[in-house]
């Protein structure tokens, strides 16, 4: 059965960003960081397809999704309110490798949605990741909270902030000086815009540090059935973002063709 999930809340959580909390039922069962759910942005035939969203967090009582308004579907999603029913299915796909001892987490923009879950999961499991969250400007940061030193936290885990215009935290790109940042790191978890992922993949390949990259592609089924969500594989052919991904070993991706 596909799931009809009740909305607990759907609140603004930044510039054009919303935090959607759902009653989890099976939707959240055993969900791991990096996995995603398919959410139908409105009942009916138009829009027809569900949209993929990373799982931002799961508790016993809720599953949350952090999303940005991009087009019609996400705009419609922002209209849901407490008590409404969302059609959904999940958890889906392959999440992050969470076995690194000293992982570096790189969240570009909305990449924070899935990596915040990874960071707090790692922390709960006794691993202290190095976590960097990059945004264009301070207003683009999604709602977190700050300790007395001005350190930014989201979902209980701390993040170093870097903004392109220096309006908060360091100034620059998340990919700046990445090779130095890799010192002592045994694995990188990255989620963000494609140019960022490509740059990270290149540095990680050079430094021979394993990289788990979370990819995006338009999806229809989310279940590995339609073959719509293909991304070029380094071995030729394609990977399915919804099945072999969304998080994939960067070495398996043909970044040139993506």
């Amino acid at each position, binding site marked *: *059965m596909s799931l009809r999930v009740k909305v607990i809340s759907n609140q603004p959580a930044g510039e054009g960003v919303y935090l959607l909390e759902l009653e989890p039922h099976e939707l959240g069962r055993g969900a791991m960081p990096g996995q995603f759910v398919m959410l139908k942005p409105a009942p009916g035939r*138009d829009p*027809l397809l569900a949209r993929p969203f990373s799982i931002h967090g799961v508790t016993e009582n809720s599953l949350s999704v952090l999303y940005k308004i991009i087009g019609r579907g996400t705009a419609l999603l922002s209209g849901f309110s407490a008590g409404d029913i969302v059609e959904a299915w999940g958890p889906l796909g392959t999440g992050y490798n969470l076995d690194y001892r000293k992982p570096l987490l790189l969240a570009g923009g909305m990449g924070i949605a899935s990596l915040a879950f990874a960071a707090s999961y790692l922390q709960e499991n006794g691993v202290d990741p190095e976590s960097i969250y990059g945004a264009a400007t301070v207003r683009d940061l999604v709602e977190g909270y700050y300790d007395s030193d001005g350190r930014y936290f989201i979902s209980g885990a701390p993040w170093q902030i870097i903004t392109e215009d220096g309006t908060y935290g360091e100034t620059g790109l998340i990919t700046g000086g990445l090779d130095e940042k890799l010192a002592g790191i045994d694995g990188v978890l990255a989620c963000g815009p494609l140019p960022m992922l490509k740059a990270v993949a290149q540095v990680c390949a050079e430094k021979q540090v394993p990289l788990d990259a979370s990819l995006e592609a*338009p999806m*229809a089924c989310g*279940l590995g*059935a339609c073959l*719509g969500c293909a991304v070029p594989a380094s071995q030729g052919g394609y990977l399915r973002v919804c099945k072999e991904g969304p998080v994939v070993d960067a070495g398996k991706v043909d970044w040139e063709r993506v």
Partner: protein
Amino acid sequence: MAVDIAGLLFSSPVIAASGTFGYGREYDDYLDLEKIGGFVTKGVSLEPRDGNQPPRIAETACGMLNAIGLANIGLEKFLADKLPLVEKTRARCVVNLYGESAEEFEKLAQALDARQGVDALELNVSCPNVKGGGMAFGQDAKAVYELTRVVRQKTSLPLWVKLTPNVADPVPMAKAAADAGADALSLINTILAMAIDARTRKPKLGNVYGGLSGPAIKPVGLRMVHQVSRAVDLPVVGMGGIMTGSDVAEYLLAGASAVQVGTASFSDPASCVRIADELAAFMKEQGIAEVRELIGGLLS
């Protein structure tokens, strides 16, 4: 709810359509395969195919485009890895065949003939006919006839020929398939179409053109099923945009003996079972005991 298609019994007239239901088990978490009549596999070719350059799908008004490019794992892997997974279910498994030449289709049919677990073959003639200059087999009645004929000789399995809507009139193609020995006709495949992103100025599909499916095309599917079922004395398996039990009833009334559900599975993975349940409820409400009371029952 059982229906007979050319001698093969399906426990329900609702069948999952090719290309939208993988190899039959991908939806297991969301529906019980045995509650529908069966499924049609993704098009299987002799050799594995990578498929088209992404993006491969785009949403349109009440529909979607796909240009998967018939990506599939190939005959060998299908037989080794996928067929065993469905063999033991009561659900029917119809294998959709894809070849680039008549010879490829022949070989596929031969290899699948009498394979345990394969209940019928569906010949996808909507693919480009490489030898015929790229025009699809399915747009040329002679090619449909020839292709059906050679495949017919290689298999004793029920043979369904799947027709394309990208023709002025589907009836000549349907007749050609019938004359060449098809047991049933499936229609419609997707409508050739295109989507453009006005801001990037690029086609939304890597392949530029793709196939339109979903509720948007239901009126075209109904019309073609109506045309074909009146003109040809073979069972028709109707499809195109089915989303509800009432949609199924409409296809049956238009002349279909069973239906396939494709794109609906993307808007809700439990669609096939939900639709079958809705059909049952509709029949109950209307006091209809047997599916065959609906088949071709359009009044005028």
